[in-house]
């Protein structure tokens, strides 16, 4: 079953389309990274999932229920951490935990204590006096202590130094050992997504440009440096699976789902060198000018 399933989902702000025909399947148990530039609509998409916004068209399902129609018990299985979580600044960390614990039906007080320790969050400190990094960690600790089946994180670990960032991601990955727990996160950090996620989708130009299991997609993708005369350009672009052909100093940089041998057989091609492909190159392929 998919934890999140979107079909032709659209969102307009007034006359301005933000999301246009989004199809997305987030498999249960996956760690799913949603990539996109600033303003691509990642946060809008999350807010639609949470029912804070209403779609202008299309359909969506969260844990099998239509968007915006989750009942209390189902809603309690979904945790959402915005990029800048708002807490009552006057509460102490310990008080905040008791407050949330009293309200949330799935609250695990032992887990909450563990996260407090792991992140080194002082229970007596006023929330308003916490550093940005500490607030980020507190928000994750609170969300995980509600034992979510679906955890939605908007730009997690942004603003953390390398040490706290690693600790944050470790806590997140550790929490994913629970079977069927799904994490959907947005990020602009390609390294973070490639490292921690098993699936990704790239949101650009109001649509999902590419989506699926990261390892499979990167395995199929090729980036090839081709030495050839300028006349080879159109023949290369016409090959099956080729997505982009860019002119380089002594030939072309070809990317897409294409094997080097297909290029070697192309007229005018002298040499083909296989380069590595990471999410970063793929990202630039779709998003670059």
């Amino acid at each position, binding site marked *: 079953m998919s934890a999140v399933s979107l079909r032709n989902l659209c969102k307009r702000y007034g006359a301005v389309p933000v999301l246009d025909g989004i199809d997305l399947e987030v498999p249960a148990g996956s760690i799913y990274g949603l990539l996109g530039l600033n303003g691509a609509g990642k946060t809008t998409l999350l807010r639609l999932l949470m029912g804070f916004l209403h779609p202008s068209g299309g359909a969506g399902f969260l844990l099998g229920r239509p968007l915006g129609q989750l009942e209390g018990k189902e809603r309690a299985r979904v945790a959402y951490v915005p990029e800048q979580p708002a807490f009552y600044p006057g509460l102490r960390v310990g008080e905040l935990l008791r407050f949330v614990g009293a309200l949330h039906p799935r609250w695990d007080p032992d887990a909450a204590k563990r996260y407090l320790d792991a992140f080194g969050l002082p229970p007596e400190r006023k929330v308003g006096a916490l550093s940005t990094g500490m607030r980020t960690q507190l928000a994750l600790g609170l969300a995980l202590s509600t034992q979510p089946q679906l955890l939605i994180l908007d730009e997690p670990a942004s603003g953390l130094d390398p040490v706290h960032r690693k600790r944050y991601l*470790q806590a997140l990955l550790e929490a994913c050992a629970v079977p069927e727990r799904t994490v959907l996160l947005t990020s602009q950090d390609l390294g973070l997504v490639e*490292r921690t996620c098993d699936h990704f989708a790239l949101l650009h130009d109001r649509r999902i440009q590419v989506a699926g299991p990261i390892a499979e997609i990167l395995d199929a993708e090729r980036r090839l440096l081709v030495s050839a005369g300028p006349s080879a350009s159109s023949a290369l672009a016409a090959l099956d699976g080729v997505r982009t052909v860019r002119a380089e100093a002594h030939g072309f940089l070809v990317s897409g789902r294409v094997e080097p041998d297909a290029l070697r057989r192309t007229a005018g091609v002298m040499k083909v060198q296989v380069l590595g492909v990471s999410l970063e190159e793929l990202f630039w392929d779709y998003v670059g000018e």
Partner: protein
Amino acid sequence: MWIRIDSHSGVPIYRQIAAQIEQAVLSGVLQAGDKLPAVRELAVELAVNPATVVKAYAELQLGGLIEQPRGRGTFVLGRPVLAAAQRHERLKSAVEALLVEAERLGFGPDEVLAELRHALQEAASHDPDGEGERHVGR
């Protein structure tokens, strides 16, 4: 943890993990019978997705470097005994990389050959037991 991940290297993370474990086995840091961390444990330690560690271990198992008896963990088997085809494939790709680098630096075939001959002689003279080829191969 001695394994390091470079997110910007362009080398797939599973391959980075596999290569570092392989290196540790080849250099003798890890020995036959040594137990490797469980998948989850290593994934959390390195802050990488568990599927990445599964893939790294699978590659090492395919290379004959480790074994994963069901439910008992992951163990180092010792220095790898690669299939003939695999050995040849690895040598070929190492030679290809050498040729690309030589061409980039402007060396011709004769100079590459001379350098190779020289290196082989050096290695043989340092290793009277005749194991020089294996060391060069690494």
